[in-house]
């Protein structure tokens, strides 16, 4: 019904347009998403094709505190480019009401390859994820009708939205458009120029220590990291796994979404790119350094019914201090300083 009516309105509008012979409307320009060699092709949803205007709008919204209840916080408050898009290396991010959340902010890069969002995968897709932080009481704590109102009253946003989504001059800004625009920007946040990537492309050399670290990373008897942090491009299998942080998990992770007992204490395997900038580590930010992380994987992981089979069989103390240092050296080949300084992702204001 509603759609039918809308259609009538639209066709009416078009008819009127034709009568009045308006200036030719500028079509949004398709966005040319450049995927660095070595990373897989990205799936873009058919109902949200990327455009130059859409990406620019999404970037602006990402940096605009207009999306929070008291206009003090934007997405970039907790996701800062200089920190690989996590917050200022806090354990728990602080929302507009000064309240901390219960999870460590996640770095934002290579999101276009993820199958779900948040530590527990609760958000099913990038567009849907956007309304989470805006409405979350311990984050931006804003009502969506107010967001729509503020955007529609803004001197520039209505025009920017119409240009990005090729809408008639009378169209109002809606929440689905806001979600689509931010998702378009998020898909551009690609990190793929680390020394490891350059080495894979044959453009640089890795040191003997780094190469040894890579061997240990893959060695089933040693690091055995690549079972979950798949070596290659994304450094994650995007599965939910219990890596043994607790025998009785405080945060039940994936279980909160699926309610399957077998999912207790499981979290999404994170990428291992840009670790130099994204401390502290794990969903609750419990480890401040990679040395602590390696000590944990070497001997600190705890048994529980849902502990991943790969770790159940891992021998405690299998890594020497040199082994751990080598793995860390390898991990740092995944740091991508270009990503942190790329002007395309910087604050546009």
């Amino acid at each position, binding site marked *: 019904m509603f759609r039918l009516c809308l259609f009538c309105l639209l066709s009416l509008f078009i008819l009127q347009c034709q009568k009045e012979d308006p200036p030719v409307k500028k079509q949004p320009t398709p966005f040319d998403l450049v995927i660095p060699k070595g990373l897989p092709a990205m799936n873009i949803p058919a109902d949200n094709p990327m455009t130059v205007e859409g990406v620019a709008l999404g970037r602006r919204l990402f940096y605009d505190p207009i999306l929070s209840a008291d206009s003090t916080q934007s997405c970039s408050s907790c996701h800062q480019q200089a920190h690989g898009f996590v917050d200022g290396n806090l354990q728990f991010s602080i929302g507009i009401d000064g309240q901390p959340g219960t999870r460590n902010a996640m770095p934002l890069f290579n999101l276009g390859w993820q199958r779900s969002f948040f530590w527990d995968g609760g958000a099913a897709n990038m567009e849907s994820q956007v309304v989470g932080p805006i409405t979350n009481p311990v984050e931006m704590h804003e009502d969506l*009708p107010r967001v729509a109102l503020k955007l529609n009253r803004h001197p520039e946003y209505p025009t920017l939205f119409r240009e990005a989504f090729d809408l008639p001059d009378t169209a109002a800004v809606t929440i689905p458009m806001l979600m689509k625009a931010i998702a378009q920007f998020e898909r551009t946040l690609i990190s793929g120029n680390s020394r490891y990537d350059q080495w894979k492309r044959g453009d640089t050399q890795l040191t003997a220590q780094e190469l040894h670290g890579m061997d240990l990373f893959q060695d089933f008897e040693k690091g055995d990291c690549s079972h979950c942090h798949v070596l290659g491009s994304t450094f994650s299998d995007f599965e939910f796994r219990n890596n043994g942080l607790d025998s009785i998990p405080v945060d039940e992770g994936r279980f*909160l979404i699926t309610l399957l007992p077998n999912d207790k204490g499981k979290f999404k395997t994170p990428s291992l790119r840009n670790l130099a900038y994204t401390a502290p580590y794990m969903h609750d930010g419990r480890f401040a350094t990679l040395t602590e992380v390696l000590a944990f994987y070497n001997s600190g992981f705890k048994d529980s019914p849902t502990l991943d089979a790969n770790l159940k069989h891992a021998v405690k103390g299998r890594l020497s201090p040199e082994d751990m240092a080598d793995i860390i050296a390898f991990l740092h080949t995944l740091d991508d300083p270009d990503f942190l300084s790329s002007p395309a992702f910087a604050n546009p204001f």
Partner: protein
Amino acid sequence: MRIKSRIFPILSVITSALLSTAACKKDNTVQGPAVAPLSFVFQNRVNQEPVELGVGSYTNANGNAFSFDMLKYYISNIVLVTDDGKEVALNNHSLIDAANLGSEQLQFDSIPKGHYTSMHFQLGIDSLHNHNLDQAGDLDPVNGMFWSWNTGYIFLKHEGTYRNANNEWDQLLFHYGTDGALTAVELALPDVNLDDNGKRYTSTSISIKLVQQSEYYGLRHRPHSAKRFLYRSRLACQTNGKRSRRIQRRPG
């Protein structure tokens, strides 16, 4: 008639199919429009009492008192079925909001003529549409009918107050949803004849009684426990009595 489903407590939903008619001609071949208007009115009841927002209180089968400040739900994929099995799809997803009187009536202007003997619809959002929140119209998140921490639409939202174990009024937030909660409702339509031959214009009023089960009001809403709770609530629902009566034929 029993409705196959797994759903929730306390409310009686009465669907009435009201037929209002256009011109009626005797010749069924060419004359007269091939379509007729039809509207559904959703009336919310607790037992026999109509739901009113912000006033009064109701008592469920367990003797718990509660009230309504908000009652919103989705009715999706309404399909009419003719006596020879043809199906006519009417809507996609419609948000019924007790605070918005207009939304309680779904008006369809051009139903193909035919003798309709049953209908089916869903309470909730089908899984094809339940996992993307960037949808327009009644599915726009601006309507507040979604979860962000676990992507999906809230199928039914009842907010108000309830009298807790200490006999104090406490906040009630009941948010019902997830794929497993989608409730298919199938109803026989004893006598809906949209046919310019038949000359019968009838209205069917079917009340669906959704009987509340235990735990409903014992729980305060927390985002994560709410969903767990939803899985625990079980449906006992039944239509209570089908009534059909003729309404006056309008002059043709």
